[in-house]
């Protein structure tokens, strides 16, 4: 058997569970995104379907790697996929996503220039990702455990919180958090040993490693934790939607910022529907409703942020130039770096057993 045939056969075998998945039909927009992250809000889906006649079918992923696997193994199934800007490069290089004709998206013109012109999303003058929302991986606190909100990342190491601290079970996030705690650039970590030492001393403080918003919110609801790493949009949702005593802290040492964007996979059978959906997702009307009803990160659309009330967290705090100075945007990470981070993270988790 010739090698390409063998490869093809094995590929087919490995993915055979998903190979027989339904093929997309025109008039349907298949969206791949995190669960509970805007695109699957029932009111939003209904409004979009009524306005355009397209039917929205949501599918979800639990990690960026799973998202990439899903588009790799289901070519032609998805029309819209939400990709963290740091992964856009990899998706483009693997020819998983196609250039987007932004002239078909009326709202694209209102996207802030620094986001729309991000080198992570634009390659060779072509746009491979439409910036949607951005946010922070910062700290969040259980308001019941603090009289006054802390300002420093060092609070995580305070012995008073022993056994009541959480951190996400994610090697990249953990290592970048360690970089901030040791005063380093998250995209160019020079002193890995310092990060390791710092994280090693954090491990005995940890109650558990969270992996979903639901984990975090349940632990606060049952008053089991004081402080932990959390995403800004999730903290907002915990407060607005679930009425939990959660507030976000952007430590003076800084925080990790990320940018989420929408892309159209290669082989999409409904590019027109995909463009309409992305345009709807960056529309101010959808954004304001999302923030008010559910809680959300910060829109990349300047008009959408301006449509929020003046004192809204996403406008007042996240739009504060002082905050902008402290945060560091995540750049793409190579597979080799990711392996190193994972090895370090696994070693830390084994050592604490």
């Amino acid at each position, binding site marked *: 058997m010739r090698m390409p045939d063998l490869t093809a056969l094995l*590929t087919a*075998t*490995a993915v055979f569970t998903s190979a027989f998945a339904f093929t997309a039909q025109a008039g349907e927009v298949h969206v791949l995104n995190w669960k509970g992250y805007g695109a699957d809000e029932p009111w939003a889906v209904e409004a979009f379907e009524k306005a355009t006649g397209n039917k929205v079918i949501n599918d979800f992923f639990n990690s960026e*790697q799973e998202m990439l*696997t899903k588009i790799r193994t289901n070519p032609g199934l998805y029309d819209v996929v939400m990709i963290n800007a740091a992964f856009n490069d990899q998706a483009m290089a*693997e020819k998983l996503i196609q250039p987007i004709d932004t002239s078909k998206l009326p709202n694209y013109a209102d996207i802030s220039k620094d986001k729309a012109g991000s080198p992570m999303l634009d390659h060779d003058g072509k746009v491979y990702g439409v910036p949607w929302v951005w946010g922070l991986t910062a700290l969040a606190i259980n308001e019941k455990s603090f009289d006054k909100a802390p300002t420093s990342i060092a609070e995580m190491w305070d012995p008073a919180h022993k056994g009541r601290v959480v951190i996400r079970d994610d090697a990249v996030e953990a290592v970048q958090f360690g970089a901030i705690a040791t005063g380093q650039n998250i995209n160019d970590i020079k002193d890995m040993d310092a990060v390791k030492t710092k994280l090693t001393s954090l491990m005995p403080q940890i109650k558990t490693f969270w992996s979903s918003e639901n984990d975090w919110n349940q632990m606060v609801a*049952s008053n*089991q934790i004081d402080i932990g790493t959390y995403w800004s949009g999730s903290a907002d949702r915990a407060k607005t939607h679930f009425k939990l005593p959660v507030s976000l802290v952007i430590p003076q040492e800084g925080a990790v910022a990320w940018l989420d964007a929408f892309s159209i996979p290669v082989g999409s059978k409904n590019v027109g529907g995909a463009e309409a959906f992305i345009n709807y997702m960056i529309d101010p009307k959808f954004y304001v409703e999302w923030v008010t009803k559910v809680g959300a990160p910060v829109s990349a659309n300047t008009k959408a942020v301006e449509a929020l009330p003046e004192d809204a967290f996403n406008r007042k705090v996240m739009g504060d130039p002082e905050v902008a100075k402290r945060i560091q945007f995540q750049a793409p990470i190579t*597979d080799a770096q990711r392996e190193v981070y*994972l090895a370090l993270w696994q070693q830390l988790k084994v050592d604490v057993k």
Partner: protein
Amino acid sequence: MAAHGAVAARGGLRKALPLLAPAYLWLTVAIFLPLSAMVFFSFMTDLPLTGKPWAFTLGNYAAFFSQSLYLTLLLASLRLGLEVTLWCIVIGYPAAYVLAKVLKGRSREAIFLLVILPFWSNGLVRIFSWAMVLREGGILDTALNAVLPFKINIDLMYSYPAVIIGLVHSYVPYMVLTCYLTLQAIDDSLIEAGRSLGASRLQVLKRVIIPLSMPGLVAGAALIFVPVVGSFMEPRILGGRTGTFYGTVIEDQFVAVFNWPLGAALSFILLAVVLVILAVASPVLRRAT
């Protein structure tokens, strides 16, 4: 005579073929093909799926031996498997005995239903309900403090015991069912004969009942030990910061870093270790039966 027998056997096989075909087709498509693909992946540097160049390597297997991390976790997982199996025997065997020899009729059916019930609920639901019971201020904590005159603090959630409790709950029905089948097959007159010849209840248990029900115990233990060693969901949800095991590391390789070759290699090392353990244990156990 022999030729006639062979012809008959061949005829029997031909007749049995339509009955066997679905099972064999299913095994080939659903187990053999993906598993051989995984064996193949475990010797590769990269997946062909990503479109990157790849080559054959033994590096993924070497990775296991180059870092103490994997061995430490494998030993921890084997210990977890042994402990869970032991607790399943301690809890499941007496229950199976009562079901097989003491209860009759309606009450047996009712108890049987209770044993099988966990099978009918989703595994994840079971684990999350344990999370509600075990945490501080959870159902167990509140109930005990309501009854007891003194204050105790029960927070088993996110600990090693929580993982054991969750896994034992999930797997104890296997032990009850396999032991029930062998215990029920023991002729009551053998027990009566032992008793009438002067054996104490304990002697009857040791000399008659346990040896005769050994096949059930062994089958149950194997059914439980193997999946528990590779378990990842229960440790991850219930174990907190102590919840890192060999299974969770394999899961990370598949889900978090998309390193299927290393994940596959680690899985096959686990498979090999488990097979060696079963092979070493089987003559000992066979002698015991």
